[in-house]
């Protein structure tokens, strides 16, 4: 395994310590593993908390800050946080207006956040949960744990964060977060497997001429393997998968995220975005906003995900609203 690290066991703490040193406007509790805004909860504002396994940076810790999250609780690598962490984060985020939990739909995340929500409730705190489940590689049926939460998490956290900053009430913030998730679909392809510090070797072996199609963000294998093809062929399949699941009519407006998995250079992501833009234009869909870069990663995996979110009433204004976090910043 080739990584900048000291020991596999200290990887996460060391990385969080560096994150803390780099961002004095955030406060990082290395003990409780909770990242909050240094200034604390914002009086009169609904709190926004998210978290999940680590290894997806900048998600979620990198999205704590003005206009987005109030607190994040990073779990072990690819392991959802424990209820204590989440409760700790809720306490830090709750100004009395209640807290929205943004949870990616994985069995572990859902169970741990549910337990945390119960505990927070027992403390008399109002908590609403927004489940993110945008990955169409997983059919949403009784034969699965349901669609995974992936690239759309960026959109949900930004847009719900802006709604909270604007002063929306608990139920309203949760509602718009759910609308964003409902309007979003994603699909991912991996060119290489990622290596977790503890495993020390790639999660799966992928021949030099094959790709994993329909992968998640935890290094798990995808739905199937395919021969590596041209970007235009791969992307057209990805866009089909996304739009077959949730068709967009000609004339529709969309926010598109081309998200790198961590090991893919920006120039490739732009190349992919160019293909997506052309395909959507063919279908008469106009992209009103876009984000191209590493947002929801999978350690050093080479690959990308494509997220298409129909820009419903109000989404773009909230997307454009000022945000100041390590991973996303404008207007401030």
């Amino acid at each position: 395994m080739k990584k900048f690290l000291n020991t596999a066991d200290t990887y996460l703490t060391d990385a969080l310590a560096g994150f803390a040193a780099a961002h004095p406007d955030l406060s990082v509790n290395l003990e409780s593993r909770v990242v909050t805004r240094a200034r604390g909860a914002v009086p009169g504002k609904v709190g926004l908390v998210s978290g999940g396994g680590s290894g997806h940076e900048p998600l979620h810790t990198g999205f704590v800050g003005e206009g987005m999250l109030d607190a994040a609780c990073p779990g072990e690598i690819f392991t959802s946080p424990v209820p204590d962490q989440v409760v700790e984060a809720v306490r830090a985020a709750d100004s009395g207006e209640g807290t929205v939990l943004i949870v990616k739909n994985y069995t572990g995340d859902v169970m741990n956040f549910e337990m945390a929500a119960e505990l927070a409730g027992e403390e008399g705190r109002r908590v609403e949960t927004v489940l993110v489940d945008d990955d169409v590689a997983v059919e949403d049926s009784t034969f699965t744990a349901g669609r995974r939460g992936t690239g759309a998490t960026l959109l949900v956290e930004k847009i719900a964060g802006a709604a909270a900053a604007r002063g929306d009430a608990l139920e309203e913030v949760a509602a718009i977060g759910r609308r964003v998730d409902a309007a979003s679909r994603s699909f991912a392809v991996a060119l290489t497997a990622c290596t977790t510090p503890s495993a020390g070797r790639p999660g799966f072996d992928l021949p030099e001429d094959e790709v994993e199609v329909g992968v998640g963000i935890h290094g798990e294998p995808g739905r199937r393997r395919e021969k590596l093809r041209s970007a235009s062929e791969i992307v057209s399949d990805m866009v089909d998968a996304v739009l077959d699941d949730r068709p967009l009519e000609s004339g529709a407006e969309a926010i598109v995220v081309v998200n790198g998995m961590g090991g893919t250079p920006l120039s490739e992501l732009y190349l992919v975005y160019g293909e997506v833009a052309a395909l959507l234009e063919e279908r008469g869909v106009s992209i009103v906003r876009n984000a191209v870069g590493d947002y929801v990663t999978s350690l050093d995996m080479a690959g990308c995900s494509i997220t298409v979110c129909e820009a419903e009433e109000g989404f773009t204004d909230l997307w454009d609203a000022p945000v100041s976090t390590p991973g996303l910043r404008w207007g401030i």
Partner: protein
Amino acid sequence: MDIELARAWVRAIGAAVERDRERLGELDAAIGDGDHGANMQRGFAAAVDAVGAMSPESVGAVLTKTGTTLVSKVGGASGPLYGSAFRAAGKRLAAERAETEEVGAALSAALEEVRRLGGAQAGDKTMVDAFAPAVDAFTRVAGSGGRLDEAARAAADAADEGLRATEPLQARKGRASYLGERSVGHLDPGAASTALVFRALAEAAGA
């Protein structure tokens, strides 16, 4: 089962997941995200410390503390599941000693909790596929007057059997379900750790 045996059981699980950490991780890497070994090791190492540090009044106190520790240290799917299971079992064993049949009832309560929380049916390729047959075997032997070590050994064998049976299954719950047919042909990591949990009980009781 007395307090010391309960402690010995937790220590035996800790030793087992420490030893098989890699194997559990590889099983999880094949159809999941590869962290099950680390999760179990982290959780039970903490549980061993916790139950070692306490002076429990009851068998249940040991198991409840184990469950609470797992919940607060593991995360992922297995944390809440094993954690709640041990807590549910602990609730049922309020005395300093527990008859084998009482232990069986506690294990049944634990299984129920796993089913309730995770919603997995038999055959979904989860820990339930090792947990359920293990509990059945345990209560059967206990019901016919068997000793704890006998019941535990039967449970461990049944769990191993259940684990083996997960290989041909297609996962319907948890991460492995994302793979669809590709989950077929692999053992379920959680079923594998469950088999370790019951084998550890047999060892502790046999000693």
